[in-house]
């Protein structure tokens, strides 16, 4: 009865409504395409630069100033052992971070989310504060902590200043508040009854965490690991600050040395190294899109 009353009103509004919707959509796409242009231009240049002798703007130039001059000379660095050393360092840092952040965050996030203990509120607030607060300001003091750690006999050689282990430790600590916060969010979403059932079935709290709860937060842990790996792989400031020379330099530090050392900078060779170190990231980018975009879904809850 009511529909027959509304329909005549809607009918004439139809075409106008449609055009407006169409315009709105065009406007939306126009805006979005415009917004991503700088990003696309940056990447386009990166790819073109790696396979040409030199570029002017986005155009590859040959020796005569015409368009052309394609070359693979920029990729000669792959035979340089220094870059493989840097790559190994990057990989070590990234893997150590995935393991360290993974363990500390899943254990800590679980305790903060599911356990009752003295000091829980303090810990939760502290995690939140540290999570929002980029700890790069503490690097000056961390420098002294690392030097102190380096003085410890035997293990000091692995975790002190100017060691891959030391850099990895600092990076793990800096990523930790985010990790704990995210994992806590994922644990928060799990049903209590499942955990109660496991306790009644005879599991200890540790076993509940390991056998029952961890399998449920696997997607969250995967997303966190992915982001941690990327953070470790890309790390620049911490390795740059806490390493000297090329022995323990990771890829970004190596690349930046390339920019500042060679004067004038060979931009095309630098671009090639840059693209080279992005290969694992681009693989992740292509194959784990959903995970990448859902990373904060757990952590944003309750805020």
């Amino acid at each position: 009865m009511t529909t027959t009353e509304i329909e005549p009103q809607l009918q004439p509004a139809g075409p106008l409504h449609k055009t407006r919707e169409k315009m709105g959509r065009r406007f939306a796409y126009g805006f979005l395409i415009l917004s991503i242009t700088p990003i696309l231009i940056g990447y386009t240049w990166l790819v073109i630069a790696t396979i040409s002798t030199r570029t002017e703007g986005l155009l590859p130039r040959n020796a005569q100033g015409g368009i052309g001059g394609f070359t693979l000379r920029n990729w000669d660095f792959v035979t340089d052992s220094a870059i493989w050393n840097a790559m190994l360092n990057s990989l070590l840092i990234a893997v150590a971070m995935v393991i360290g952040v993974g363990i500390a965050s899943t254990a800590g996030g679980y305790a903060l989310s599911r356990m009752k203990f003295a000091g829980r509120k303090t810990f939760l607030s502290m995690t939140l504060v540290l999570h929002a607060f980029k700890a790069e300001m503490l690097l000056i003091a961390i420098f002294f902590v690392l030097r102190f750690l380096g003085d410890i006999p035997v293990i000091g050689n692995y975790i002190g200043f100017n060691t891959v282990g030391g850099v990895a430790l600092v990076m793990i600590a800096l990523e930790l508040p985010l990790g704990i916060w995210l994992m806590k969010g994922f644990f928060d979403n799990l049903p209590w009854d499942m955990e109660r059932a496991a306790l009644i079935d005879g599991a200890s709290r540790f076993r509940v965490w390991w056998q029952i709860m961890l399998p449920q937060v696997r997607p969250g842990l995967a997303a966190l690991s992915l982001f941690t790996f990327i953070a470790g792989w890309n790390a620049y400031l911490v390795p740059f600050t806490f390493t000297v020379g090329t022995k323990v330099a990771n890829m970004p530090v190596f690349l930046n040395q390339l920019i500042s050392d060679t004067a004038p900078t060979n931009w095309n060779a630098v671009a090639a190294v840059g693209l080279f170190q992005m290969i694992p990231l681009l693989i992740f980018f292509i194959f784990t899109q959903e995970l990448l975009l859902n990373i904060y879904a757990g952590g944003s809850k309750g805020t």
Partner: protein
Amino acid sequence: MAQSLDKDTLARAAIGAPGPQRGTLGRRVRNTFTAYGFLGPAMGLVLFFFVIPGILLVVLSLTDLSSANFSDPWTFIGLDNFERLFADPFFPKILRNTVFYVFTTLIFFNLGLALVLALVTTNIPRRSGFFFRLIWLLPRLTPSVVYILMWKRIGQADPFGIYNQLFPEFLGASGGNLFLGGSPWTFVILTNGFVGASFGMIIFTSALESIPKDLITAAKVDGANVWRIIRDIKLPMIKWPLLFIATYQTLSLLTSFEYILLLTEGGPGLFTTEVWALTAYKRAFASYFGNSQWAFGATWAIVLVTVALLLAVIYVKLFKFNELIEEPRIENL
């Protein structure tokens, strides 16, 4: 209550079970112990890389430690470093730069553009929206060194710069270097904003997508157009994420400097794009005349850390964080 406790005690005594003291207190200690076992790795890292450095910063700021005298015993010089900091001729400029940088980037990118992107990408078909958000995530995933390399190339002087080539003599294009010449701030804010916007975008998107569809339908039936739906339904519904991102990103911008360090190093010239966090870092590590002024850098850092912590406390209070904490619904072990 008292009576029941008595009964409890009696019953235990009768069957030889542990008394209330050993039982309840012992269990509470054990519960806490187990929890701290889980928290152990995290606590160790927090202690070594947050708590101790925090204290060290304070101590350092009271000394005159630098790379020139680091092998000597530490000399405490009271508040001299703080006097020096506030008397620094560039102190007002650095402060102005910091405020300008934080709020401009926040309003135009980390909050503003993030919101617009979330609203627009959730208003077009799902796949397309997903695609654009994914592209927007790319800068965040790109190593900072490579990312800044691209921006440098965009802003370079003729004939290498991409912007100068695409838009000759348009919007500030001068043929010269843009990030170290014509418009360094534009580039500083763009480079940071293109990374910063994606965080808010993701949070807002998930908040917008969790608004019940019925609500939007109801508003449409009531005759609301797209703008009214955004204003009257969507924005009020994502009020908390908006506030969260605003405070979170303020803190984040205030204490980060990596992209500025890589792009302009605070230049061109004297302190043109230098922000507080960068000053602290440069004083301590970028050796002026081969001398790293650790103590003076620590002084800049501790002032900023204090400000940031105060903001963080306000932010925890603002979100009534303590009320949001859910009590665990399992109490025993």
